[in-house]
């Protein structure tokens, strides 16, 4: 029977990263993936990732996928696509369906990196065509160039719900509302803010009462819930939509580990039923590892590091590297992983109510309840300062492990320091040249360049813009506030695009100067 040093199930971020580390150390590695394209969910992630440079921050997910794949290929990793792993049997035997047959192969080590599946909620009409998972929406738009619908209601304010809402708008859908039964936004505030400023209303403490339609979705009714998650009569709101998108969390897809006989635990901190693993990702069965979402739901960046650790540990197990080398390498990866597991959204913080930042700044309640920081709250954050001339305004208000803006500024105007989760602060001693690198580098699209007083009664605001059609210089329209409300007229005075900006265009709009700290988005007037 064919024998590999390592068989990896799943060519997502964890699987590919493990393959790279194992192959780098001389191992013969095969990666099976049931999809036609490798990369797992990475190829559906078109936003820039958070993190530090080592975590591939500010690179878009699908580019990370391409990089990993190229690296794996160059190291001789065999990546087999359209390959469905049927089962994991004793003696580390894997059966895999390829084309019209089933192959039996064995691995001296095996990594289960099967990822996650989407959770669902029930409501009357939830089985109608037009009710889809957020992952389905991403697949349709980002892989197949197809709009899931014209008018969409998003249920779920976690990062998936927020990111996909933004992607829906980028693809050309109208997102009529974002609802969540939870009382507070679950995902990153910056993700929420970029959705809210486009005009999407947030309905927290709201759930779907029913979906309308006989053959497919024609509308949706949402309603406010009380403490017991019951809809309060009289609070119902109706929207005409053709699509309802569900983004209510992920569960580890751990069936294969269970079938193999790995010890399992149902751990709410890991969002479900997972194989128990040690610090190397090894399950209760020696030589069988698990990494990525299958061993606990986290970000793709964490999955990549977990994969690397498993690859390194497997290499040590089979004698490709020494124990000492393994320990040193794993320690390095672990410290990176720990870096990612910091801040307000760290795995250990799930369900905890946070009232202030590490710096002692009161958290914006408006952000948590409506998706945007209100005008009176924004001033208290260290990234928001005033100066003459053009200067950065950083509306980053929660402690998340991310720091590319600090390095992006060639003039060192932005300070985060060694604590990666610290809120970015402005160094008033340094002079901003308005180059815009910080604006384009911010994965949360939370940085603006503002000239509060151009001397003629106007102010100029430079904002990140990732939509089509791209307004041209001279375009006239409306400036929208952080809440997406039209606040004043605006004119585009500059549009900057550069390879280094990676599809984030810098739009500079001119508004009356009293709106310098209020206007945060531009909506072009419909051309007659």
């Amino acid at each position, binding site marked *: 029977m064919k024998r590999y040093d390592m068989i990896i199930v799943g060519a997502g971020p964890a699987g590919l990263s493990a393959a790279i580390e194992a192959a780098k150390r001389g191992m013969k590695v095969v990666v099976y993936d049931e999809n036609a394209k490798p990369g797992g969910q990475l190829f559906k992630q078109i936003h820039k990732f958070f993190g530090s440079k080592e975590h591939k921050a500010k690179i878009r997910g699908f580019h990370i996928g391409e990089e990993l794949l190229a690296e794996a290929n160059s190291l001789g990793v065999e990546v087999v696509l359209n390959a469905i792993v049927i089962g994991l049997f004793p003696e580390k035997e894997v059966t895999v369906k390829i084309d019209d047959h089933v192959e039996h192969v064995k691995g001296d080590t095996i990594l289960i990196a099967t990822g996650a599946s989407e959770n669902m909620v029930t409501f009357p009409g939830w089985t109608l*065509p037009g009710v889809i998972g957020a992952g389905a929406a991403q697949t*349709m738009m980002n892989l197949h160039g197809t709009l899931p619908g014209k008018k969409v209601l998003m249920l779920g304010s976690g990062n998936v719900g927020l990111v996909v809402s933004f992607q829906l708008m980028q693809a050309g859908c109208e997102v009529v509302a974002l609802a969540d039964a939870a009382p507070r936004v679950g995902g990153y505030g910056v993700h929420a803010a970029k959705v809210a400023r486009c005009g999407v209303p947030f309905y927290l403490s709201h759930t779907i009462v029913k979906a309308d339609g006989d053959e497919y979705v024609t509308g949706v009714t949402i309603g406010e819930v009380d403490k017991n998650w019951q809809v309060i009569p009289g609070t119902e709101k109706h929207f005409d939509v053709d699509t309802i998108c569900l983004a209510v969390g992920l569960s580890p897809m751990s069936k294969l580990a269970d079938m193999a006989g790995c010890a399992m635990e149902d751990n709410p901190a890991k969002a479900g039923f997972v194989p128990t693993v040690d610090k190397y990702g090894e399950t209760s069965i020696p030589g069988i590892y698990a990494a990525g979402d299958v061993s606990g739901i986290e970000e793709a960046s964490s999955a990549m590091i977990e994969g690397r650790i498993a690859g390194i540990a497997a290499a040590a197990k089979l004698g490709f590297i020494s124990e000492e080398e393994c320990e040193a390498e794993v320690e390095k990866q672990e410290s990176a992983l720990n870096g990612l597991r910091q801040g307000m959204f760290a795995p250990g913080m799930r369900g905890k109510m946070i009232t202030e930042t590490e710096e002692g700044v009161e958290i914006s309640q408006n952000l948590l309840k409506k998706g945007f920081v209100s005008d009176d709250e924004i001033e208290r954050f260290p990234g928001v300062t005033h100066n003459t001339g053009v200067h950065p305004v950083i509306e980053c208000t929660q402690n998340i492990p991310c720091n590319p803006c600090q390095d992006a500024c060639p003039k060192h105007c932005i300070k985060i320091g060694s604590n990666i989760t610290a809120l970015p602060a402005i160094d008033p001693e340094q002079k901003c040249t308005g180059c815009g690198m910080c604006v384009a580098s911010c994965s949360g699209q939370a940085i603006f360049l503002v000239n509060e007083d151009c001397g003629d009664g106007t102010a100029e605001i430079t904002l990140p813009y990732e939509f089509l059609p791209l307004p041209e210089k001279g375009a006239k329209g409306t400036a929208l506030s952080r809440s997406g409300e039209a606040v004043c007229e605006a004119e585009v005075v500059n549009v900057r695009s550069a390879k280094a900006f990676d599809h984030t265009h810098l739009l500079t709009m001119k508004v009356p100067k009293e709106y310098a700290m209020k206007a945060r988005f531009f909506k072009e007037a419909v051309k007659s």
Partner: protein
Amino acid sequence: MRIDEHPILGTYEKGRTVSFTFDGKELQGCEGEPIAIALKNAGVMVHRYTKKEHKPRGIFCAIGRCTDCVMIVNGKPNVRTCITPLEEGMEVRTQYGVGEKAEGGAQQ
């Protein structure tokens, strides 16, 4: 509806245009894309009617997990259209219960 140009992804690489039939009606799609995507772009929402309650179902997960989008493809029932590539001349039919619509309107 197809996305002509995407602000981040640009234009999409698509296979050549091919013809297939949906319940006997000729439709066009791109070769190699999932059948469900071609149907979606042709405005088809309902892929099947369920066995017990005869309720409509369509795309739900789009990655081959939920099996809600199954249809009869080239005579074979229960084909997951969201992950089955479209080929020239495919015969795609609405599935009723676990198979074809029975004679006389009753469903299997």
